[in-house]
């Protein structure tokens, strides 16, 4: 470790003296991307007991920040020699800042991490392999193999999942009642579409049954998984061709547009930043099951409960759903205090007290040790029960998202809105998505 830092400082001097920026880049990537930087620490350094300061970064709003502040205070009480400085931002700003730090050297010691960025940071050697600390600083009794497997990229454990979520469908019982339509009772995607149309019609167009689900790449993924394929394979190749994507987008045609059975894109634009479901304009929404609290917040006091049911079925008996880490905790490869950093990760992932503070704010806790500290009520209990109820549809998690997955997910969403506006044909949308995929997969 010492060598690495000496070298970095030396490079820094070189970079500063060289007027051209070319040396700068050589520096930043040269030291950070060196995988041996973390490997050299071997079996993991033990905590020294000396006074240590850790930087910790997370994204979230003021509510989550309060929770972390309380948790970190507990941690510092338990380990008086460790001081934790935490910093937080909203999600997009958080990642912009991390990107800059990654390029410029200087990621925080411990970070809340997102699944879609895990591969990118791991493969570039920016995250510490936590495997040596598992079972030591990081207790694993509460973490199943499946959970631990989520944070493995290549052969390194670069992230520990704090919590998981599953794809599901939220419904608004109050809207359904006033429309006089029963809760969606399961069935195929076509059944769902007719149910949506029924709600829209029954409410006289005041409320919509749902949103065109083909705008979300996750729905496409659920369908592909049911057919035994991945959205993207481990090697980054897509598990679908143009025809399959075109078929998927075509299938949403009767939900789109002014006369569609779903809410129009125009309406959604007007109420942004609030969502259609959060504005009580749609009665159902396919999304991750940890979004419930946000919806209840948007809906306000006049709506007290939500329905949470399984997404439509593509192929009977298929394992089309999976548990996704709603977030992970990772340690920077360049941390000077890996053992203490691992202890912080352990505390934030496993501690029952932390569980009591957070509830399901970060998703359903992945660690059973943490769950022991929690009392499940209301929406929390509903989410836990939901994940139990779809247990036989839960399959293995797909490969860790490829580098650039975020770009493709966003492109997919944007093309979905354009289809909604009718500014692009399905054929054009498919070709645009594939050309974007070319760029992402080849860079």
């Amino acid at each position: 470790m010492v060598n690495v830092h000496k070298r970095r400082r030396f490079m820094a001097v070189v970079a500063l003296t060289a007027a051209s920026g070319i040396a700068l880049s050589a520096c930043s990537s040269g030291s950070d991307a060196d995988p041996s930087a973390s490997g050299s620490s071997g079996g993991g350094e033990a905590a020294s007991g000396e006074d240590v300061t850790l930087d910790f970064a997370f994204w979230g709003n003021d509510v989550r920040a309060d929770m972390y502040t309380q948790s970190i205070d507990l941690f510092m009480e338990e380990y008086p020699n460790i001081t934790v400085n935490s910093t937080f931002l909203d999600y997009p700003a958080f990642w912009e800042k991390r990107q800059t730090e990654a390029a410029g050297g200087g990621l925080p010691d411990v970070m809340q991490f997102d699944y879609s960025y895990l591969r990118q940071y791991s493969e570039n050697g920016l995250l510490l392999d936590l495997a040596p600390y598992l079972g030591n600083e990081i207790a694993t009794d509460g973490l199943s193999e499946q959970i631990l497997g989520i944070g493995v990229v290549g052969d390194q454990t670069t992230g520990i999942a704090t919590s998981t979520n599953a794809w599901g469908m939220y419904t608004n019982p109050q809207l359904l009642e006033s429309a006089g339509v029963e809760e969606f009772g399961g069935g195929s995607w076509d059944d769902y579409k007719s149910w949506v149309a029924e709600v829209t019609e029954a409410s006289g167009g005041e409320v919509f049954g749902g949103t065109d689900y083909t705008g979300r790449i996750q729905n496409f993924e659920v369908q592909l998984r049911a057919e035994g394929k991945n959205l993207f394979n481990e090697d980054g190749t897509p598990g679908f061709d143009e025809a399959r994507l075109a078929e998927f987008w075509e299938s949403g045609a009767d939900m789109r547009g002014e006369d569609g059975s779903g809410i129009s894109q125009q309406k959604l634009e007007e109420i942004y930043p609030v969502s259609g479901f959060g504005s009580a304009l749609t009665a159902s929404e396919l999304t991750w099951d940890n979004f419930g609290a946000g919806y209840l917040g948007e809906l306000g006091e006049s709506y007290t409960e939500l329905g949470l049911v399984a997404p439509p079925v593509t192929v009977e008996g298929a394992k089309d759903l999976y548990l996704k880490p709603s977030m992970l905790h990772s340690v920077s490869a360049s941390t000077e205090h890996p053992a203490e950093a691992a202890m912080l990760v352990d505390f934030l992932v496993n501690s029952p007290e932390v569980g009591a503070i957070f509830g399901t704010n970060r998703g359903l806790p992945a660690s059973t040790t943490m769950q022991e500290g929690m009392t499940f009520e209301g929406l929390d209990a509903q989410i836990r029960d939901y994940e139990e109820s779809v247990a036989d549809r839960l399959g293995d998690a797909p490969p860790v998202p490829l580098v650039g997955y975020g770009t493709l997910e966003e492109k997919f969403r944007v093309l979905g809105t354009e289809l909604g506006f009718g500014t692009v044909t399905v054929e054009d949308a498919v070709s645009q998505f594939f050309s974007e995929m070319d760029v992402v997969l080849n860079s």
Partner: protein
Amino acid sequence: MTGRGDVWVKHDSDQERVVQPRPYWNRKRVTTLIWFVALAILTAIVIYPLIWLLFATFKPSSEFGQNQGLIPDQPTIDNYIKVMDGIAGVPMWRFFANSAIIAIAATVGTVLSSAMAAYAFARIRFKGVGIFFTAMIGTLLLPFHVVIIPQYIMFNKLDMIDTYWPLLLPKFLATEAFFVFLMVQFMRGIPREMDEAARVDGAGHVRTFGSIMLPLIQPALVTSAIFSFIWTWNDFLAPLMYITSPEKYPLPIALRLYNDQTSTSDYGATVAASFLALVPILLFFLVFQRFLVAGVATQGLKG
């Protein structure tokens, strides 16, 4: 644009009033009335969105997206109560204080350094001034997003991350070409007789700059100070890059912390906090805008 024609009527009416008081007095009153009504209507249009924003601060969070009208269905002051609580243990006044410190220091730095550079560009003839002027304009043209990372690397090497130096140092070094150029343009508008007279009397550039040029371009200085203060007050990207401790965050970052697309967003608190953030700069503008008018000193001197 009705005003364009009216603007110039003022002076003759004053003069001719003596000769034919009544009709001209009426005409003047009519023009003033038209002027006033035109301005009032324009003001109402321009200010309405801000009024809407003010009313929206009394809407509970759930009304956003459900009630797009002006009047809250269920008015509440909860948003303000929440904002007053601060964020994650950092009191709200702290964000205001941070913003004020940064904005004041940045304004002083910008006005001083830009005025100096502008004087050199506008009034001193020396080798290289042409190339430097071109380079200065050139810095305006590059979208700043692509220089973020190299600049971050530099400040990181200088160990200035999580301090206000990366935010303030550039201001004291006149890196904002906008202000340099603005002052150059104003200095060029100043008749040369004024500073030449001083030079001829034996004043050096320092004295000419300090006691002749600066007073003459007062409107430009005030304008620059106002802009610099407001833009720094509202700047988001630079603090995002360089400040990590929440207790050092300025307001624009704090304002975003009520929203998280990945969990819950409190639009009521966001709107209330945005409105509160508007108040100090509105007061700042109210206080300093009067000096925009005071810069008429040149008139009497221009011959």
